[in-house]
């Protein structure tokens, strides 16, 4: 099973950007979402999300706002910035190119 540490750093960034591209989410929700969507394959060590989130925030790809959750608790919600959306498209494209290339190599005998 892939541990998050083994994930290439850029990959975690891509996952985060993709996850919050539809609607703003807080850290725990992001972690949950990644686990669910990947069918529990990608077990992100939840804590390692936060350094990544802060790094993306410093790069101004995502922005954060404190909002109330449905349970009435204050939480930090992350959303994409315009620059983040552009970055997401670039990284997604990179990823599909890379993965299809690897697929080709692996599947060609």
């Amino acid at each position, binding site marked *: 099973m892939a541990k998050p540490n083994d994930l290439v750093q850029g990959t975690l960034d891509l996952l985060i950007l993709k996850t919050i591209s539809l609607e703003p989410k807080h*850290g725990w929700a992001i972690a949950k979402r990644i686990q669910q969507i990947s069918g529990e394959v990608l077990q992100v060590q939840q804590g390692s999300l*936060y350094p990544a*989130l*802060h790094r993306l925030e410093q790069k101004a790809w995502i922005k954060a706002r404190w909002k109330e959750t449905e349970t009435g608790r204050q939480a930090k919600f992350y959303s994409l910035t315009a*620059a983040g959306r552009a970055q997401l498209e670039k990284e997604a494209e990179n990823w599909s190119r890379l993965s299809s290339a690897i697929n080709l190599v692996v599947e060609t005998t």
Partner: protein
Amino acid sequence: MLWARRFWLKLQSLFRRKRNAQQLDDEIQFHLEQQILENIAAGMSREEARYAAMRTFGNPTVLKEEARDTWGWIGLEQMGQSLRLSVRALARTPGFALAAIFIIALGIGAPTALFTVVRSVLLRPLPFKEPQRLVRLYEHSADDKFPYNVVSGGVFAEWKRQNHGFSDLAILKTEREYNLSGSGGQLPERVAAGMCSWNLFPMLGVAPALGRNFTAADDQPSSNATVILSWGLWKRRFGSDPALLNQTIRLDAKPYTVLGILPPWFAYPDQTVQLWTPIYHEESPELMQALDDHEFAAIGRLKPGVTAAQATAELSVIVRGLHDQHLDNPLVGKAAHSRPLLESMVGDVKTALYVLLGATGCLLLIACLNVVSLLVARGATRQKELAIRAALGGSRWRLLGEHLTESTLLACAGGMVGLLFAYTTIQWLVATRPDMSRVEAVRMDGIVAVFTFALVFFCALFAGVTSSFSLTTNQLLSSLQESSRSHSAGHARLGLRKGLLSVEVCLTVVLLIASGLLLKSYEQIRSSKLGCMTKNVLTMSFKLPEAQYSKPVQRVSFWERVLQRVRNLPGVRAAGLIYYGVPGDGYGGDGGFTIAEHPPLPQGQYAIQRWADPGYFSALGIPFLSGRTFRENQRLDKANEVIISASFARKYFGSEDPIGKHLLRFGRESYQVVGIVGDTRYLIVEEPEPMTYFPLYSGTRLAATLAVRADGNVVEFALPIQKIVQQLDAELPVADILTMDQIIRRSTTDVNFDATLLLAFAALSLVLAAVGLFGVVAYIGTQRTTEIGVRIALGAQRGEVFRLMIWHGLRPAAMGLAIGLVGGAAAARIIRTLLHGVHPLDAPVFAAVTITLLAVAGAACVLPAWRASRLDPMQALRSE
């Protein structure tokens, strides 16, 4: 705009660190709570849920650190931390901190002060238009004795007419004085002045602050007399009155129209020149055309693209041509030389200043080494702390950084104190050496600030890095063990300190030798004999204005009346008059002569000329070796006797008896030699030169110096004599009232100054080296307490222990001494031009330095060594 946003975020994270940290805590707390809630919902107990949540999350502390890292500024944060730690550590040991700061302040202050002077005097360009194209021109005398001789008016005129390399040539003479008459109750005054061709100021690019420059029309024998005043004279004497322009002032009792006032910053060749007059108006046309009368300074401005060498070569050809046309006149020069104008002004202080700057460099190194030594010693006391920190994972870089922070702090504080110190030193220096060229330009500027900053940086880096050699974190275990039981503590550290000490001692020895040689040279000069009495002799000079004393008989009558009245003053032992000046007061001038009884010599002969009254020799105690003084009838056109000096007799008459022989001046005026007097030196630092004395009462001279010898305090006679002169001529100012001792001191100031400063540096470094030695031996003593205790307990003699400890201190000192002696010999070669009558490898000086150093080193070691040898073994063993 992305980068702007990122920059803004960075800034925010810098100034909102506390809030951000709080929010990060909240965020993670929230995450954990959510996970716990979910786990409980999945059926875990509360406790279980919490552990599971923590497990999936990872180590919150580490993750928080990682998150904070992404905010940036981690380096800054660490630096701040190191800074706080260092300040705290230094505050805990104020004695150490103050000592280190003081030492660094000395080390930085001295070179900063000297560099300020060197930069202002030697390096900063002259404040003239394109100063790099200005050169001073010289004539090479035919006998090769004076390669950089002043120029004659005739040669200059030919240069000006024939040259192609210069866009302009100017001629000037500054050793001129005028009697400035008083108006409205002011006293008359004698002022130093310069004469120059009209184009000097335009050539230098200097415009008067008020009024106008000379023009070619002002600079002719037939034009009206004009003058340009210095700013200082205008302010002091005329109260900065702008109405003075185009008015007349009286110089030497003649009216001069004031054309302009020079700007306040103008000081060429120095600030003593008070006013300028046009040279072709002031000097006779004959003098300005003479080829053999060397009186003037010449300055040229090179044309663009012409080198000084090319232009000078052309001038050389011109002089050579004149020389060949006048082979009968041996006083016509035979070549030309040039020097950059700046060098011609400051050349004589250059070596001395660079030597002093070098000395301060040594001082800085010594100071740094001492601080390193202190840091290393202190590192020893903190060894355990550092070892434990390293063991707990403190990175080596972090520890090194802290070390550097500490030394930087010390260096900065020291640098600031040093700057203050330098500032005071410069004030003092400028006040003490008004005679130094360009001293008025000495001030601190941006370059000096950069220099000081560089010194601070060097100091910080040098002290920090060198002292951190002893930070051996890779030998953690051993250092922990070592400090638990110090039998042979810190060998590496001790070796380093001993090495530093050797370097320190070596530099000290070099400084000591240099200052010793200079001091000896100074003593040599002080003890050399002028050739006349110097105790209780007062001198003053006056110059009769030609307008009122046009006839020789008027002059002679004045001289006689002055002498008679002064000699009648009660308490005055003797008085005499001499032109150009008393011994020690300068070269004056020389003149050519031939000996009537000898066949004429092709290369010509000349000697220093003086004009004296008959009583001058006995007044100053200059002995007659043979013959007698002038007879009373030697006056006006009957004067035909001459007195020669001993070296003149030796050089030109050999074994012959000169008495009764005749000297011819200008090939026609015949003078009979009537006496031979002892040699006198024209400057105390120069060997006596052949000299001739003509009768002052011939009345050919307008100026003279009065020398008065009295019992007791001769200075008391200054006022009565001035009154006598006043009674004889109310308009006549008296100038240069100096005792003989003051005249001597004037020409020895620079040697004395250099020697004193160097000695001060040497003494300082000796003290620093001694402190360093003391420190090392004391350190060994405390580090080896146990070992010494064991030795003594096992029966070692106390004397033996004492010798051992002394040896520890003396060995590095002896090594430094040996290298230092070699270095000193090299340094002596560099300063040999500053030495008078002392061999650069003067054995007594070297011996004295060796003995002094060994004595001081020994003394510094004795106390700690003695203390070590008095150790009570029981206590020593228990103390661990």
